[in-house]
C-alpha cells in the first residue's frame, strides 16, 4: 500500500466523476442541440411557408389582374430576408409570372410550375412551392428557395457554445471534484497512511481517526479493532519471545559448555590417540579370543601392515609359526585363569616376511564386573637387541674357537715339524721308482696343507698379540696379487686411491686377510670372472649394516668384489663362523677358517666389515680400517702450496680427532683457532668473540650446522663460514649455502683443500657474503 496507488484512487475518482459529468453534459447538450436544430429547421420551413403564404396572398390580386410589376414588388420585399436566395411566382397555367433573385449566386429557379404544395430540403438549401389560392380557387404558385447558411451558422454557434460550456463545465467539475472527492479519499488515505506507518514502524499502538459514519468509518473501526488485536498478540509474542530468548541464551550457554567439554574430551582423546599411535612400541588390543581389535601406527611402521590389514584378524597371523604355541599358551592362561603372563619374546612376521623380534607385555582390560573385555599387548621391538645378542654370541664363539684352535695349532706346530721335514729325507733315500715314493709324496703334501691350516689357526689364536706399524693397504694388495701369481690368469680391475690413508696395523695379518678374500673371490668365480679391487678414503658417521654403531672418523676402505655365484641369504650370517664352509671337505678345498681369520683381523684393527651379496650376481666384501694421519708429512706438503694468515677461526665439530687435526693444521698456517664441540657452544662463543671464519660440521648432536649458522647470522649477518660433512650435498647444506656459507667440503677433508678454501673464503670481500 504505497502512496502512489492511493493517489491513483484520487485520480480514478476524479476521472470517473469527470467522465460522468462530461458524458452527461454531452448527452444533454447534444439532445438539446439536436432538438433545437430540428426545431430550427422546422421553424425555418414554417417561416418559409408563412412567407410563401404572405407572398401568395399579396400577389393574388396581381395575378388576378395580371400585374407582374406589383408581384415583383411583393417579391422585392424579400430583400430583408438575407437567406432567401430566390423566389418566383407562377401563373395558374404554370408560366413564370414574377421573379426575385436574392443576394448571392447559384439560385436555380424552375422554368415553370404547375402547382402543388411541396418542399425539399437539401444540405444547403430549402426549396418550397406553395399554391396561391384566391377565394377557393388556385390562381398561381409561389416558389421560394432559402439557403441554410443561417442553419450552418447556427450549428457553428452551437458548437462554439457547446465547446465553451463543456470547457467551463469540465473545469468546474474538476475543481468541485478536487474538493469534494476528499470526502471519500481522505479517510481512505488516512487509513492507508496509518497502515503504512504500522507496517513500517511496527508500532501497533497507532490508530486512525474515524471521520464519518459510512462504510469507510466502519472500515476504520474494523482496522483499529484489528490493530488492537495485533497489538495484544504482539505484546504476547514479545513476552514469549523474551522468554524464548532467555531460554535460547541458556541453551547456547549450555551448548558452549558442552562444546568445551566435548572439545576437551576430543583433545584428550586425540592426545591419547597420539600417544597410542606415536608410542615407541607396537600396541595391539585383542579380544579374549585373540582377534585384533586395535593396532597403533607404530605397529604399522614396524610390521608394514595397515590398520585395515590386521584389524578383525587373528593375532596368529602376525606370529611366526615357531612361536604360535607360546602365544597360545599365554592367551589360554589369560582367558581361563585370568592371569597376566610374564613377558614373552616372540617373533612376528612383517608383511615383507621379515622377522621382527618383540617382547610381549600383556595387560588385561576388564569392565566393572571384572569380566575380561580385551587384552592389551605391548610389543617392544627387540630385533636389534636380538641381533646384538647374536653378534655377541658369534664373537664369543669365534673367540673361544680361535683360542682353542690357537692352542691346538701351537701344539700341532711343534708336532708337525717331523711330519713336514721327514718325507723329503725319506724320499731322498729311496730309489725313485719305488711305489712307496708316491705315498711319501702324498704324506708331504698333506703335511704342507696341515701346516697351512695350522698357520690359519695360529692367526686366530694369536689375535691381538702382534706389533703394529703404519701400513699402506695399496702396497699390501699389490704384494698379495704378486704372491698369488694370479694377475695373468684372471681379469683384475684395480681402482686404488693414490692418497689412501695410512692404516695402523699388522701387515702380516692384513696380508693374510686380503689373501683369503682374494682366494675366496677367485674360487667363487672360476676362470671367466672379473675381480675388482678398490680402495678409497671415507669418513664414517652412521652405523654400517650389521653394526649397532661405529666410531665416527676417517677410515681406509677396501672393496673386493667378484661376479661369482653369490652367497645365499640364509647362510650370510654364518660365513664368519670357524669351520663353516661351502666347499666340500676334500683335500683340495678350504678348511672353513678363511673368513673367520678375516673377521678376526678386522676386529683386531678396530675396523668394520660388511658383505653385500646378490645370489648369481656376485659378492662384495668391504673392509673399513681406521686411518692414522701423519700430520707432519701432510702439513709440510700443504705449507709448500698454500699461504696462511693470522685471522681468527672457530672450529665446530663433535669429533675430537677432526677438531685436533684441523686446529693443528690451521695453527701451523698461522691462524688463531678455537674449538667447540657443538652448535650451541659455537653460537655462544661467537656472540662474545667475533670470528673471521667459522668451520662448521654439518651433522652434530643438538642443532646442526645450518641452524648454527642461522643463529650466528642473527647477530653477525656477515659471518663467513665453511661447511664440512660426511655426506654429500643435502637440502640442509643448500640452505646453509643460501644463508651465506662460502664453501662445502665433504669429509674426509684433504688438508691442502681445507687450507686453500679457508684462505679463499677469508679473502672474499665481506659485502659479497651478505645476501
Amino acid at each position, binding site marked *: 500500500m504505497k502512496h502512489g496507488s492511493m493517489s491513483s484512487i484520487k485520480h480514478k475518482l476524479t476521472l470517473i466523476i469527470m467522465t460522468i459529468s462530461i458524458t452527461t453534459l454531452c448527452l444533454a447538450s447534444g439532445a438539446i442541440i439536436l432538438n433545437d436544430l430540428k426545431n430550427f429547421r422546422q421553424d425555418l420551413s414554417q417561416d418559409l411557408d408563412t412567407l410563401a403564404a404572405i407572398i401568395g*396572398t*399579396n400577389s*393574388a*390580386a*396581381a*395575378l*388576378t*389582374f*395580371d*400585374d*407582374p410589376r*406589383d408581384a415583383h*414588388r411583393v417579391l422585392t420585399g424579400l430583400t430583408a430576408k438575407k437567406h432567401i436566395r430566390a423566389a418566383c411566382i407562377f*401563373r*395558374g*397555367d404554370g*408560366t413564370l*409570372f414574377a421573379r426575385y433573385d436574392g443576394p448571392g449566386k447559384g439560385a436555380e429557379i424552375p422554368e415553370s410550375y404547375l402547382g402543388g404544395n411541396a418542399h425539399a430540403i437539401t444540405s444547403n438549401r430549402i426549396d418550397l412551392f406553395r399554391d396561391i389560392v*384566391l*377565394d*377557393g380557387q388556385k*390562381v*398561381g404558385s409561389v416558389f421560394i428557395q432559402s439557403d441554410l447558411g443561417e442553419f450552418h451558422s447556427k450549428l457553428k454557434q452551437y458548437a462554439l457554445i457547446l465547446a465553451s460550456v463543456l470547457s467551463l463545465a469540465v473545469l468546474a467539475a474538476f475543481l468541485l471534484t478536487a474538493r469534494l472527492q476528499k470526502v471519500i479519499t481522505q479517510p481512505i488515505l488516512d487509513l492507508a497512511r496509518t497502515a503504512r506507518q504500522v507496517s513500517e514502524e511496527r508500532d501497533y499502538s497507532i490508530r486512525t481517526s474515524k471521520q464519518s459514519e459510512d462504510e469507510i468509518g466502519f472500515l476504520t473501526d474494523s482496522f483499529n479493532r484489528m490493530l488492537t488485536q495485533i497489538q495484544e498478540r504482539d505484546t504476547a509474542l514479545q513476552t514469549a519471545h523474551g522468554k524464548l530468548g532467555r531460554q535460547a541464551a541458556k541453551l547456547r550457554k549450555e551448548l558452549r559448555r558442552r562444546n568445551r567439554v566435548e572439545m576437551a574430551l576430543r583433545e584428550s582423546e586425540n592426545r591419547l590417540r597420539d600417544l597410542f599411535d606415536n608410542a615407541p612400541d607396537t600396541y595391539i588390543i585383542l579380544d579374549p579370543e585373540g582377534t585384533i581389535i586395535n593396532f597403533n601406527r607404530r605397529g604399522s611402521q614396524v610390521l608394514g601392515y595397515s590398520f585395515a590389514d590386521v584389524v578383525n584378524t587373528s593375532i596368529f597371523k602376525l606370529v611366526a609359526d615357531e612361536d604360535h604355541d607360546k602365544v597360545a599358551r599365554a592367551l589360554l592362561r589369560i582367558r581361563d585363569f585370568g592371569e597376566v603372563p610374564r613377558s614373552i619374546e616372540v617373533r612376528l612376521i612383517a608383511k615383507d616376511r621379515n622377522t621382527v623380534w618383540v617382547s610381549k607385555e600383556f595387560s588385561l582390560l576388564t569392565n566393572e564386573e571384572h569380566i575380561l573385555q580385551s587384552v592389551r599387548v605391548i610389543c617392544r621391538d627387540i630385533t636389534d637387541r636380538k641381533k646384538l645378542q647374536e653378534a655377541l654370541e658369534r664373537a664369543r664363539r669365534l673367540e673361544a674357537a680361535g683360542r682353542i684352535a690357537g692352542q691346538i695349532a701351537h701344539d700341532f706346530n711343534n708336532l708337525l715339524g717331523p711330519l713336514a721335514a721327514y718325507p723329503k729325507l725319506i724320499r731322498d733315500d729311496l730309489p725313485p721308482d719305488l711305489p712307496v715314493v708316491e705315498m711319501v709324496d702324498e704324506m708331504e703334501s698333506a703335511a704342507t696343507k696341515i701346516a697351512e691350516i695350522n698357520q690359519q689357526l695360529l692367526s686366530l689364536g694369536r689375535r691381538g698379540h702382534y706389533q703394529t706399524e703404519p701400513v699402506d693397504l695399496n702396497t699390501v694388495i699389490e704384494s698379495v696379487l704378486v704372491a698369488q701369481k694370479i694377475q695373468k690368469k684372471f681379469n683384475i680391475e684395480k681402482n686404488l686411491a693414490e692418497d689412501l690413508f695410512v692404516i695402523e696395523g699388522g701387515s702380516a695379518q692384513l696380508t693374510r686377510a686380503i689373501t683369503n678374500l682374494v682366494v675366496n673371490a677367485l674360487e667363487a668365480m672360476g676362470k671367466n670372472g672379473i675381480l675388482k679391487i678398490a680402495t678409497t678414503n671415507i669418513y664414517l658417521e652412521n652405523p654400517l649394516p650389521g653394526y649397532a654403531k661405529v666410531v665416527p672418523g676417517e677410515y681406509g676402505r677396501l672393496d673386493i668384489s667378484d661376479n661369482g655365484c653369490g652367497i645365499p641369504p640364509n647362510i650370510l650370517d654364518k660365513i664368519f663362523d670357524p669351520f663353516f664352509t661351502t666347499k666340500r671337505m676334500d683335500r683340495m678345498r678350504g678348511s672353513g677358517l678363511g673368513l673367520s681369520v678375516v673377521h678376526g683381523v678386522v676386529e683386531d684393527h678396530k675396523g668394520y666389515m660388511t658383505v653385500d651379496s646378490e645370489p648369481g650376481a656376485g659378492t662384495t666384501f668391504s673392509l673399513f680400517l681406521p686411518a692414522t694421519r701423519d700430520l707432519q708429512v701432510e702439513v709440510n706438503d700443504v705449507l709448500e702450496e698454500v699461504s696462511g694468515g693470522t685471522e681468527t677461526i672457530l672450529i665446530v665439530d663433535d669429533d675430537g680427532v677432526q677438531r685436533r687435526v684441523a686446529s693443528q693444521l690451521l695453527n701451523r698456517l698461522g691462524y688463531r683457532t678455537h674449538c667447540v664441540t657443538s652448535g650451541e657452544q659455537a653460537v655462544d662463543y661467537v656472540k662474545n668473540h667475533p670470528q673471521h671464519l667459522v668451520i662448521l660440521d654439518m651433522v652434530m648432536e643438538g642443532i646442526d650446522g645450518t641452524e648454527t649458522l642461522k643463529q650466528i647470522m642473527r647477530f653477525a649477518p656477515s659471518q663467513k663460514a665453511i661447511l664440512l660433512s660426511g655426506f654429500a650435498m643435502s637440502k640442509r647444506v643448500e640452505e646453509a649455502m643460501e644463508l651465506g656459507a662460502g664453501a662445502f667440503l665433504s669429509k674426509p677433508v684433504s688438508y691442502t683443500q681445507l687450507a686453500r678454501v679457508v684462505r679463499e673464503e677469508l679473502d672474499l670481500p665481506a659485502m659479497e657474503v651478505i645476501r
Partner: protein
Amino acid sequence: MKRILPLVLLALSNVSFAQSGTSVVTEYEIKAAFLYNFAKFVDWPTSAFQTDSTTIIIGILGDDPFGSILDEIVADTKVQNKRLQVKRFKQPGDLTFCHILYVSKSETKRLQWIQRKISGASTLTIGESSDFLERGGMIRLVNKRNKVRFEINPMAASKAGLRISSRLLKLAENLKNTLANGRVPQ
C-alpha cells in the same frame, strides 16, 4: 363556363388583347373577367345582403358591351361563397339594387342621375369614361399600353360603405405611386 374558363385564365396571362393575332381575346372579354374579379376584393356591408344573402348581383346599365361573355364567366361560379347574377338595365330609371354596377359609355351623360338613384346603396360603380371617378364613380377601367388597367376612387367606395381590399388598391393606376410611397389612401 367551360368555354369561358380559358378566358379567365387568359385574363391573368401576360398576353395583351390588341396584339393578339392567333388567340383572339377581346377587350371586353378581359373587362368582363375584371368585373367578376373585382367582386373577390371588395367587402360589402351586411346590409347589402339583407334581401338575398347568397347572391352578388352584377348590373349592366346602358349598352351591354360584354354580350354573353359575362354570363358565361359568372355561371356556375361563386365568389365569397355567393352565386353571381347578371342584371341588365336599359336606363337609370330601371335601376334596382345591384352589388356591382357597370355604367356603360352610353350612360356617361346621365351620371348625375345615376348617382342620385343609387346613393345610399352599397353599389360598386365601374365605368369607363375619363371623368368617371371625378363624378363620383368608384372604379374606372382604362386601357394602358395595350393592357386593361383600372383606377379607383377609394373615397367614393368608402362613402358607399364598401371596403376595397388594399391588394386591389395597390394595383390601381392612380394609387400605385401613393401606396408605393407608403401612404395609405383613405
